[in-house]
């Protein structure tokens, strides 16, 4: 061809053979192989990490049942947690974890949704300039600091108001509420923002008020997103360790009411793991608690997926 090409020397010699020229591997082809290699490797590392984590925790967690022959029902429904004496009923911790998680989610959701509505519908300007940073800051506060404040403020406050030691489910709920609030809020904001603008316009054009538009159109079509947000918040609450451990009282007994001390899977885990011997029942029992945590996070994940699917279907059908 008449045009002067600037390709690699190798190809220059065959520049009249178009077939060869167009079939030959070039620098770009090689770059692509390399790029593929690098990125596949990286994703491979992540998969390896996840797989080995699942494997380790599962194999340690089931040892309680396979090696120590504790029955699964006893573990899940027993209420006596004294691994040193061979009693490992995990129900108090399971109940404790669920109690604080649900309580925190129930308290936090209205606050989160309200704030999100404010940020997207009522005052988007203030939302972006003032609340966005506020929310991001709340996310950024480390959980030890939440624990520290819980210990210094919430626990004495609860002791004062409701009596008892102040340690307990209600204090943990309060601390967790503040901790999951930003998570739920920022995800709710995302899902509200994702509602197509024309939904809103359609409703407004029909003469609906702002609140009618928000409650019947926007919230409705953002429901899957909000549910996802709440579940993420619950997942965070379920897995939170230090802040809860510092305020819940760590009593491995079935919680009788909201002010009685209780313990969660995570708090029992952090409290006990250092004092047990690898391979013994008390140690294995703790890993079984970790296994429950793992399974729960898998469960939360699956739930999010189901909701996302449902939401999609609703939009497609």
């Amino acid at each position, binding site marked *: 061809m008449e045009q002067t090409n600037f390709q690699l020397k190798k190809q220059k010699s065959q520049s009249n053979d178009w077939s060869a020229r167009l079939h030959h591997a070039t620098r770009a082809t090689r770059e692509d192989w390399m790029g593929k290699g690098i990125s596949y490797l990286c994703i491979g590392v992540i998969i390896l990490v996840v797989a080995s984590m699942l494997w380790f925790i599962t194999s340690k967690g089931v040892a309680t049942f396979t090696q120590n022959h504790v029955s699964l029902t006893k573990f899940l429904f027993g209420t006596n947690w004294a691994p040193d004496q061979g009693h490992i009923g995990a129900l108090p911790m399971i109940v404790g974890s669920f109690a604080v998680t649900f309580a925190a989610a129930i308290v936090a959701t209205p606050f989160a949704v309200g704030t999100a509505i404010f940020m997207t519908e009522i005052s988007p300007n203030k939302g972006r300039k003032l609340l966005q940073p506020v929310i991001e800051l709340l996310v950024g506060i480390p959980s030890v600091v939440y624990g520290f404040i819980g210990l210094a403020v919430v626990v004495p406050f609860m002791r004062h108001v409701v009596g008892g030691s102040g340690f307990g489910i209600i204090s943990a709920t309060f601390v967790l509420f503040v901790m999951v609030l930003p998570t739920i809020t920022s995800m709710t904001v995302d899902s509200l923002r994702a509602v*197509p603008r*024309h*939904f809103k*316009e*359609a*409703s*407004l*054009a*029909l*003469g*609906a*008020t702002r609140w*009618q538009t928000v409650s*019947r*159109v926007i919230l*409705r*079509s953002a429901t899957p997103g909000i549910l996802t947000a709440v579940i993420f918040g619950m997942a965070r609450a379920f897995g939170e360790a230090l802040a809860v451990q510092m305020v819940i009282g760590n009593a491995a007994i079935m919680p009788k009411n909201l002010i009685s001390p209780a313990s969660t899977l995570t708090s029992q885990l952090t409290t006990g793991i250092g004092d047990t011997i690898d391979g013994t029942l008390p140690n294995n029992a703790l890993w079984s608690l970790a296994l429950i945590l793992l399974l729960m996070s898998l469960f939360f994940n699956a739930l999010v997926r189901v909701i996302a699917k449902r939401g999609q279907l*609703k*939009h*497609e*059908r």
Partner: protein
Amino acid sequence: MLKQYSFEETAVQTFDEKTSLAMKTENLQVFYGANHAMHDADLAFPKNQITALIGASGSGKSTYLRSLNRMNDGIATVTGKIWYHNVDINEPTVNIYEIRRHIGMVFQRPNPFAKSIRENIVYALRANGLKNKAELEERVEKSLRGAALWDEVKDSLDKSALSLSGGQQQRLCIARSIAMEPDVLLLDEPCSALDPISTVKVEETLLELQKKYSIIIVTHNMQQAARVSSQCAFFHLGHVMEYTPTGTMFSNPQIPVTQDYIAGSFG
């Protein structure tokens, strides 16, 4: 190469006392912040007719149209007067929700709610206090018939509106608007996202609807304007340049800029 047209040379018709008008704007100006998007629009819209707004992209058609039912509130600054039943509805004291009930709007992209077909229509009615079941059902049928959609959907009113085709969705949006029994219907390029078959159906619907409503339609498609409208306003860079009966506009445009635009040799 590109001709500069003078904004002074315009040809905007007015109507005599006898013509009964649906709406009228005086001196309407719209600003997006510092961007002066609409200059001094003085247009009057006769009752029970279709008026088309045409012009190049960005010429301000949507901007103008959205001002008519205050959809620009909070987005743009709108000055001037918008007369509707002898009330200047551009005043802040006016109840915008009432205005929008009387002046309905249909958008460029069909935007049904992610609800059933029935719910799409019933939603706003219920929000406005209509609770009677029988009456609601009646309205659903009437408006769907009005939008020429009834026959196609009467057996599937509980299906999601999102399962309809684009053209059906757009007619549903029209049905949703007319269910509110408005006076005026504003349509912003209602066919631009539709295939030719659906376009024809919507156009037929509009021609039918003008018997009951006054319609103002923005369109990019001059053929469409020619087919449906009685008069036609040509927008250019935020100015209304010509407003004449559609026949006149297409066969005998009054000023150079319109002539060039109609001839397609614009620019």
